[in-house]
Structures are given as structure tokens and as C-alpha cells.
């Protein structure tokens, strides 16, 4: 589903965020990207939906070399890749329902699709009753559920989560991990960047460890160490 071949990413100012990275992630896998702050986890994720472009190497998503993709095809790529962030990126002037509908509206989905899919996904993330609330009326965990609903409502093949539990207390984080696990069980490939030792050690999934831009470990059913 995702393949990196000798990928290097350097930012202006000579920061090399990813060095000669190779990785092969199959459909339906759940992968933790771990490593200290600044080790290149976010960069790894941003390369996959073309928020960043690599300096060298090739990246394949669903069999396609995304480096050869024209600018016009980038939106199609992104429709297949949901993204969730530590800071949720919810729109404060829209209700929960509107935040989720927005993701479908702006890719031109017809109204009848939106009116059936949005309630269904809110039910799935456990926010069936919250549709008319605004983000500031929700707890952090609930806000992250909204953002997961928005990322998943279009049923993407891949879900990228960049420290989704970074702002949440451990109890709330467990709930979010259960949700991501459920999404993974529907066949969606999940990549999650984190430096939460507890979560990695309990879940026992594949672990790709980064240090200073190098992939230093790639282990199935790994722990944090």
C-alpha cells in the first residue's frame, strides 16, 4: 500500500529530516512511527500525501509513483488518505456535523450522500448525539473523534495520524486508540506517529523507529524500548 525507496528529505537550512528511508507497508497494516521530537516522523507522514516533496527517492501509494503524479491528481491522492493531527484542525465556526460534512462538500459529494454518511460516521466514533455542538463545547477526546470522523468519512484507504493522542490524558488516549483500531479492522491502513511509550507497548503492532532522520528499527509486534 505504501512504499518508500531511498527517500531523502532536506529542508531549507540544511536540516535533513529523512535520510535514505526504505519502507514497505502492506494493505491493512497498523504501523507506529516512533522516535524523539525532531526525528522526522511528521515529515515521513507529510511526504505520503504530498504536503512535502522528497529530494531524492521514490514513494508509491496504492501502487502509484506519487512523484510522477501531476499537480491536478494530488486532490485524488488526498481523497484516499485521511489525516488526523495532534491539534485536531477543527473549524471553530462550524458545528461537529458541519465540520464532517465540510470534508464531503468540498470534494463535491452530493447532498444525499452527505446526509447519510455524516450521521453514520458520527455514530461510529461515538458522537451520535453531538452533531449540533461546536468544537469548543467538546472535550479534547471528543474533538479528536470529530477529526477522525472527518478524516474517515470518505472511507480512505490510508489513515495518517500525527501524534493524535499528544494532547490527551492517558484515559482519553486509550479511547482514541480503540477507535483507530476499529478503523484499522475495516481494512484501512493506519500510520500513527507517536512517542507515547505506553500506547506502543500495549498495542504491540509494527514499529518503525526513527532517529535523526534514519530508520533505525522496523519490527513487527514491536515495543517502544
Amino acid at each position: 500500500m505504501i512504499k518508500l525507496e531511498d527517500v531523502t528529505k532536506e529542508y531549507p537550512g540544511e536540516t535533513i529530516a529523512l535520510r535514505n528511508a526504505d519502507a514497505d507497508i502492506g494493505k491493512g497494516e497498523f504501523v507506529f512511527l516512533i522516535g524523539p521530537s525532531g526525528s522526522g516522523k511528521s515529515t515521513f507522514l507529510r511526504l505520503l500525501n504530498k504536503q512535502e516533496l522528497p529530494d531524492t527517492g521514490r514513494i508509491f501509494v496504492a501502487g502509484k509513483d506519487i512523484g510522477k503524479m501531476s499537480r491536478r491528481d494530488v486532490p485524488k491522492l488526498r481523497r484516499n488518505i485521511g489525516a488526523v493531527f495532534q491539534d485536531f484542525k477543527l473549524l471553530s465556526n462550524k458545528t461537529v456535523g458541519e465540520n464532517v460534512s465540510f470534508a464531503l462538500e468540498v470534494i463535491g459529494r452530493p447532498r444525499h450522500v452527505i446526509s447519510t454518511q455524516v450521521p453514520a460516521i458520527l455514530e461510529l466514533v461515538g458522537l451520535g448525539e453531538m452533531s449540533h455542538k461546536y468544537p469548543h463545547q467538546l472535550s479534547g477526546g471528543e474533538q479528536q473523534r470529530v477529526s477522525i470522523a472527518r478524516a474517515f468519512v470518505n472511507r480512505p484507504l490510508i489513515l495518517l495520524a500525527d501524534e493524535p493522542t499528544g494532547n490527551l490524558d492517558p484515559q482519553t488516549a486509550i479511547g482514541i486508540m480503540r477507535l483507530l483500531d476499529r478503523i484499522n479492522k475495516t481494512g484501512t491502513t493506519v500510520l500513527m506517529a507517536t512517542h507515547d511509550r505506553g500506547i506502543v507497548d500495549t498495542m504491540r503492532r509494527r514499529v518503525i523507529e526513527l532517529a535523526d532522520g534514519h530508520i533505525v528499527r522496523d519490527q513487527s509486534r514491536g515495543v517502544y524500548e
Partner: protein
Amino acid sequence: MAFRLDYVAKETGRNLVRNPSLTIATVLTVAVSLTLLGAAMLIRVGVAGLNDRFRDDVEFIVWVDPDVTPEHLALIVDTLDSSANISDSRYVAREEVYAEFQQYYRESPTVLELVNPDEVPTYFEVVPIEPDLAVVQALGKEYEKLPGVFKVQYAAEYIKKLNDFTRLASRVMMIAALFSAGASTMLMYNTIRTAMYARRREIEVMRLVGATNWFIRLPFMIEGMIQGAIGAGFSVIAVLLLNRGIGKQLNKNELKLLASFDLNQSDLLSISGWLLLAGAMIGFLSAGIAVTRYLDA
């Protein structure tokens, strides 16, 4: 690509009311620049009408008193015919002048009602051999002394002066219009950039979930287009008022020769159309540039 009209309408409406003072400033700048452009166009069309009225070969016009005696009229004809300086002259009879008059004021029936067909002055169109202005003027002075001649009008001189003046005025206004169109484009550009900045989080989400650039762009471009068109609407009102003011002035001063500056409806309609189109285009394109530059950055 599936655009949802209700989505575009909703977003555009939100943008327009988000920053009312900037929207108003933009609309006014567009209105001012297009009013200048419209005034320049008014003058151009007026000058064109003026030149139509005086055919090229007519160098001056000898107006005859409406109550001229037949003897005096015969004397004028004789003098013109026998003059070595005149290549051609033509008497324009009362019916013809009145017909011209009717044609000319077809849009203003009230003016026509005031004119008694029997009191319409008649005139000679005179073409001198020597088209030099000084010679023509000397000739004209001579004819002005004849009994029954009410006035001599030097078409060439008159039109030349008027043309020079109006051409200059229209050029100055065109240049001013160009500069202020530049200013409105820049203001529009900034207005749209501000609108995009206010919505940067929404745009970030849109890009993340795979909205196409056109989908992001369109509401902003339509916003620019609406602002431009509203500004143009104000300029159309200003130009119509200006035209009416000129028309009133012309009638009051009986500057009949300038009556071509009182434009008819089809001329006004086409000027209005051009102004609206220009306003919408200024808005649509400057917004398009602003959005494209934002999305490419």
C-alpha cells in the same frame, strides 16, 4: 468536476460580509475608476456624433433668417454662386431641416413639440475652394454682412477646437481611469488575500481532504466578481446622472450643435454594458491572481 451551487453561494456570501469596510472600500474604488472610464466613453461617443453631423466636405454654414424675404434669399444665392472662392453651395430647405431635426431629436419628443416647423431656420452648406481656415473666415465675414443672413458658422474651426478639447479631456480621463483601475485591481487583490487569510484554516482542511484548487478558488473569484460588478453598478448610475446633467445643460444653453453629447439610449446601454463587464472582469481576474498565488505559495 461537481460544483455545488449552494456551497459556492454560501461561501461567497460569507466572505462578502466578513469584512464589510474592506468590501465597501473595494466597491467604491471600482466605482470611481469605472465612472472615469464611463465619462471618457461618453465624451468619445459625443464627439463621434458631432463629426457625423458635420459631413467632411462642409466648411461653413450660412444660416438664413426664418423670415427672410425672397429678394434677400435670391441675393444670397447669387453671391454664393458668383463667388470665385466657392466650389459648391447647397441650400437646405425648411422641410429638410425639419426632417433632420426630427431625426436628431427622435429620443426627445418634448423638444420637438416646442419647434414650430414654420419657424425652422434654413441654411446653406458652403464648400470653399480654399479649405484654409483664414480664407474661410474672411469669406464668412463677407457673407455675414448680407441682409437676411442670421449667422455664419465655421464648421472646421469650431469642430477642430471642440475636437481638440474633447480629445484631450477624454484622454486625460482615460489615463486617470487606467490609474484608478490599477488601484482598484490592487485593492481587490488585497481584499481577496485578506479574505483568504481569514479562511486559511478552512483552506488548509480543504486541501488536506482533497478539494481541487478550482473548488477552493471559485468562491473567492465570484466574490471578487460581485464586488467588481457592484462597483460597476454605481459607476453606471453616476454616468447616467452625468449624461442627464449634460443633456439639461445643453438644452438650457441652446447649444444645439453640441446636442450629440446628449446620448441616446442605445449608446448609454452599450456604455453601461461595457462598464459592468469591465467591473466584473477586474474583480474576477484580480481575485483569481490572488487565489492562485496563495495556493501556489
